[in-house]
């Protein structure tokens, strides 16, 4: 009862503050009135009675204050009063506020965005029940005991070790797949996993079931479990999806369940697995039989095991050591020298050998961004210190009028916290926008980049710590003002002439870092333009490409070939089209193979890259369509059929490097074969040498051999055509003809050669944009820092400037006196930044070692770009210094002298 009463009165006091104040006033007034009446009744004159009543009553305001305190709402009143007052002050000093909020927002925003990235890759542990009992198993690589992945038979051997493990399961590294949904072909990630996958992890499917052991057998109808995120985002969380059959890679697949919520992938690095498929369904998706054999290059399985009760990691390791020795003896060709390593799952993030590097990269990212935040906070401290100095008089007046130090500190602290809160809200908005932007960047993979509670918590902690850190120091300094000299206006000026202050060093550092970041951006822009410039040796204008997947339309292989040939004929007959040819894969997509050249010894001692070549499968007319000249010999044509000897056209570089001939002409007539194909008919004769085509900087001298479909039996998957008209129009024609022949054929990709080349530059473009963004943030921060430092100097030197101008100094001289400081700081910072950029360029150039077949771009210093950056920085610096410098020059000498 009493509690209810208390709650009611206290809530009322808080909620109806205005009414409460009116009541208090009325109550006290009523008391005075009643007292006056009493005195009048006693015969005192009305005026005297009133005066006496008021006099004996005492200070009305003090009593009111005491009543408010008694109600216990005093503290809350004070806080809300402080907050409202601080908000008004901040709104009035809007320039300062904008600078401060911008600084904090950028600092916190950049931090949160980067933290989201690092968080996605590092800090989100994969979910499983009782994770302490899970271990990861790795077969060691045969070379120097490095830790490798596992082959499928290797996994089965480990799974037989039931004495130490309660369960052993495996999943293949995620593969990129396509699937048909609503008539459109979409890309997704698929993991092939064992039937006991979920039970070993101790998880339950969110819906339906996991596939059974019977479904994980060769030849079984293919079933799939949807990843929970794929189910919610790509299938609208529709429970009726269970039992539906969709086509993945053209193969009909029945969905039997939805994976557990929060389980993204076996190796959780931010990639999200969309489909879980049985391991034994690999051949159904076209994987060669060797994918499931005991081969060192087919070791793509991650193996996880649950320890039997009472078994330690060390005991499991001992058992695996024995198994490793046994396997090495049983399979001397495949498993010789290999062992098996056991790691507690919680100690492994991605792979034992990669974790160290990933952590270092993450740490570097966090340190860089932490540095940005540290700069942002110091900037703010400087800004507040500047305000504190400018307000020293106000503070001393308040102290003189009786404000206590704690009241002042509380008020100044409120102001800082309010700023920090506004700044962190701005930062969160910025981070949200930045992660959305990062997620929208067209990467070939899906990265889970949501802002989760950890990220928000991180931002909140940063902002609160920042608020207290940068609020308290200037606040305390401001109240420690010595009253008398400040009121008199004699300020100390000891620090003014010192150049080597922390503040100046920080500004120089900021300028240097942002210049270096912009320098990095210019390097990447240089790389982009170089990438475009290097393309030569093939036609780009008017060339268009179309890729389809005949499996989705249910064609048999021979029917598919005829359908594609029909499409090719129709495209070739369209107006303006000069050539149309069939290819397998897009023209610049290549698949590298180790090759053996006839008449040379085993590859021992020869660098691997010299013995690798890429295959391109083409139809007749390919070289004409892409305008690739045949330098020697002949092109592939109708003469090359399945029954005739195997032939190939090789690139100039391959002729030179693989066949070791100074004159490419001599390569014609020689033979080579793929390393993995043995037998008499494996040899391929070189019938021609084509000029190199250069498409990218990574491999500008590609070793390519061209072979004809007719001699292989594999189906073409794509069409390339060249027109004398517009390339974009040709893309539309090709799509129209595709639909005309069979509306069920999906478009895997379609576009002009120029578009496809541009898309291949997405990664360097993204890096350039990221660096430019960080550079811009650095510029903004450096600008704010310069502004604060100059404003500080001006505030301190207003009196000196006033005296100078009173003595006849020109306005320009006064501005110069201020601007000189900026010029020196910007000059030193820019110089350091440019030096840093040049050092980076030199370091990159010295790192590049000539490797045959692999070309690494060597950056050069571009004087024009560096000059532009320096000029840009100077402009930002001068803009930041303009306001305070102008204010200094506008000072009326009389006012300046009188004020100080």
């Amino acid at each position, binding site marked *: *009862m*009493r509690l209810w009463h208390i709650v009611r*009165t206290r809530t009322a006091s808080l909620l109806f503050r205005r009414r409460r104040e009116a009541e208090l006033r009325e109550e*006290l007034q*009523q*008391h005075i009135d009643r007292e006056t009446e009493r005195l009048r009744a006693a015969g005192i004159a009305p005026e005297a009675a009133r005066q006496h009543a008021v006099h004996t009553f*005492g200070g009305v305001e003090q*009593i009111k204050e*005491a009543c408010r305190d008694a109600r216990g709402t005093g503290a809350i009143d004070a806080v809300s009063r402080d907050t409202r007052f601080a908000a008004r002050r901040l709104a009035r000093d809007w320039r300062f506020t904008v600078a401060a909020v911008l600084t904090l927002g950028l600092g916190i925003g950049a931090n949160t965005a980067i933290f989201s990235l690092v968080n996605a890759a590092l800090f989100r542990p994969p979910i499983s029940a009782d994770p302490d009992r899970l271990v990861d198993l790795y077969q060691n690589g045969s070379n120097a005991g490095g830790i490798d992945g596992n082959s499928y038979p290797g996994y089965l051997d480990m799974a037989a070790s039931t004495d130490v493990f309660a369960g052993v399961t495996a999943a293949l590294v995620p593969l990129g797949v396509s699937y048909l949904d609503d008539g459109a072909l979409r890309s997704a990630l698929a993991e092939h996993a064992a039937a006991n996958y979920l039970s070993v992890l101790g998880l339950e499917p969110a819906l339906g079931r996991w596939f059974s052991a019977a479904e994980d057998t060769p030849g079984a109808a293919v079933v799939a479990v949807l990843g929970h995120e794929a189910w919610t985002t790509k299938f609208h969380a529709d429970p009726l999806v269970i039992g539906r059959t969709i086509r993945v890679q053209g193969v009909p697949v029945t969905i039997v369940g939805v994976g557990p919520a929060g389980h993204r992938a076996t190796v959780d690095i931010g990639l999200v697995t969309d489909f879980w498929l049985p391991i034994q369904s690999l051949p159904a998706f076209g994987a060669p039989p060797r994918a499931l054999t005991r081969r060192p290059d087919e070791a793509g399985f991650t193996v996880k095991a649950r320890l039997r009760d009472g078994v330690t990691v060390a005991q499991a390791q001992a058992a695996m050591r024995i198994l490793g020795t046994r396997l090495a003896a049983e399979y001397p060709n495949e498993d010789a020298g290999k062992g098996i390593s056991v790691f507690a799952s919680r100690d492994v993030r991605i792979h034992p050998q990669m974790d160290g590097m990933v952590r270092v990269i993450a740490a570097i990212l966090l340190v860089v961004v932490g540095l940005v935040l540290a700069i942002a906070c110091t900037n703010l401290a400087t800004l507040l210190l500047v305000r504190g100095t400018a307000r020293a008089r106000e503070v001393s007046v308040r102290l003189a009028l009786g404000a206590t130090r704690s009241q002042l500190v509380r008020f100044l602290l409120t102001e800082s916290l309010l700023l920090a809160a506004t700044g962190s809200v701005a930062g969160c908005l910025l981070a949200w926008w930045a992660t959305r932007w990062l997620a929208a960047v067209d990467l070939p993979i899906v990265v889970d980049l949501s802002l989760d509670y950890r990220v928000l918590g991180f931002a909140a902690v940063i902002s609160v710590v920042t608020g207290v850190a940068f609020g308290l120091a200037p606040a305390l300094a401001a109240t420690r003002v010595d009253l008398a000299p400040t009121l008199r206006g004699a300020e100390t000026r000891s620090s003014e002439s010192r150049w080597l202050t922390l503040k100046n060093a920080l500004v120089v550092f900021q300028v240097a870092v942002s210049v270096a970041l912009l320098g990095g951006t210019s390097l990447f822009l240089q790389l982009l333009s170089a990438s475009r410039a290097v393309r030569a040796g093939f036609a780009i204008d008017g060339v268009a490409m179309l890729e389809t997947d005949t499996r989705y339309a249910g064609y048999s292989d021979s029917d598919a070939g005829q359908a594609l040939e029909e499409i090719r004929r129709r495209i070739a007959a369209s107006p303006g089209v000069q050539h149309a040819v069939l290819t397998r894969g897009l023209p610049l997509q290549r698949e590298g193979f180790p090759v053996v050249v006839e008449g040379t010894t085993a590859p021992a001692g020869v660098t691997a890259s010299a013995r690798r070549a890429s295959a391109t499968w083409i139809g007749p007319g390919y070289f004409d369509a892409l305008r690739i000249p045949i330098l020697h010999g002949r092109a592939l044509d109708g003469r090359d059929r399945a029954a005739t000897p195997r032939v190939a056209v090789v690139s100039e570089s391959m002729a030179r490097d693989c066949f070791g001939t100074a004159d490419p002409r001599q390569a014609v007539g020689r033979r080579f074969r793929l390393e993995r194909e043995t037998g008499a008919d494996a040899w391929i004769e070189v019938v021609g040498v084509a000029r190199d085509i250069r498409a990218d900087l990574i491999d500008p001298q590609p070793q390519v051999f061209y072979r004809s479909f007719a001699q292989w039996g594999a189906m073409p998957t794509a069409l390339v055509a060249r027109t004398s008209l517009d390339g974009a129009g040709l893309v539309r024609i090709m799509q129209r003809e595709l639909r005309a022949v069979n509306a069920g054929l999906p478009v895997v990709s379609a576009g002009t050669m120029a578009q496809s080349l541009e898309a291949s530059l997405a990664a360097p473009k993204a890096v350039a944009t990221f660096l430019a963004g960080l550079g811009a943030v650095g510029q903004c921060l450096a600008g704010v820092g310069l502004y604060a430092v100059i404003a500080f100097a001006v505030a301190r030197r207003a009196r000196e400037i006033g005296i100078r101008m009173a003595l006849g100094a020109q306005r320009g001289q006064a501005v110069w006196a201020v601007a000189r400081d900026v010029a020196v700081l910007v000059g030193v910072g820019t110089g350091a930044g440019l030096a840093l950029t040049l050092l980076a360029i030199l370091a990159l150039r010295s790192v590049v070692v000539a490797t045959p077949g692999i070309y690494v771009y060597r950056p050069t210093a571009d004087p024009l770009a560096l000059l532009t950056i320096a000029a840009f920085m100077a402009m930002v610096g001068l803009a930041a210094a303009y306001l305070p410098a102008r204010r200094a020059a506008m000072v009326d000498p009389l006012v300046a002298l009188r004020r100080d």
Partner: protein
Amino acid sequence: MSDQTDLIQGTLDLLILRTIALEPMHGWAIAQRIQQISDELLRVQQGSLYPALHRLEHQGWITAEWGVSETNRRARFYSLTKAGRKQVATELSKWERLSAGVNLVLART
């Protein structure tokens, strides 16, 4: 005024509670009543009366309501809550022990 005694810390609360235990009263009347009953010996300062009233209300011992005073004016009337009545008893016994203690000390010295 020298014959009027300032109130000992804490006793004002007891006096207020005791005074309004009879009937709801407004601030001025409470001060008057205490003065009258104590034969003008105790004098309540407005500076302590109103904060005390608000504190007691805040603590839930008394409650306030607007009413019409004996001179037909709007006034804020204070009355005891149920918890307040118990509090009077507690405060009274506390006071009795205190005064008894003080008297004993004074009598023996």
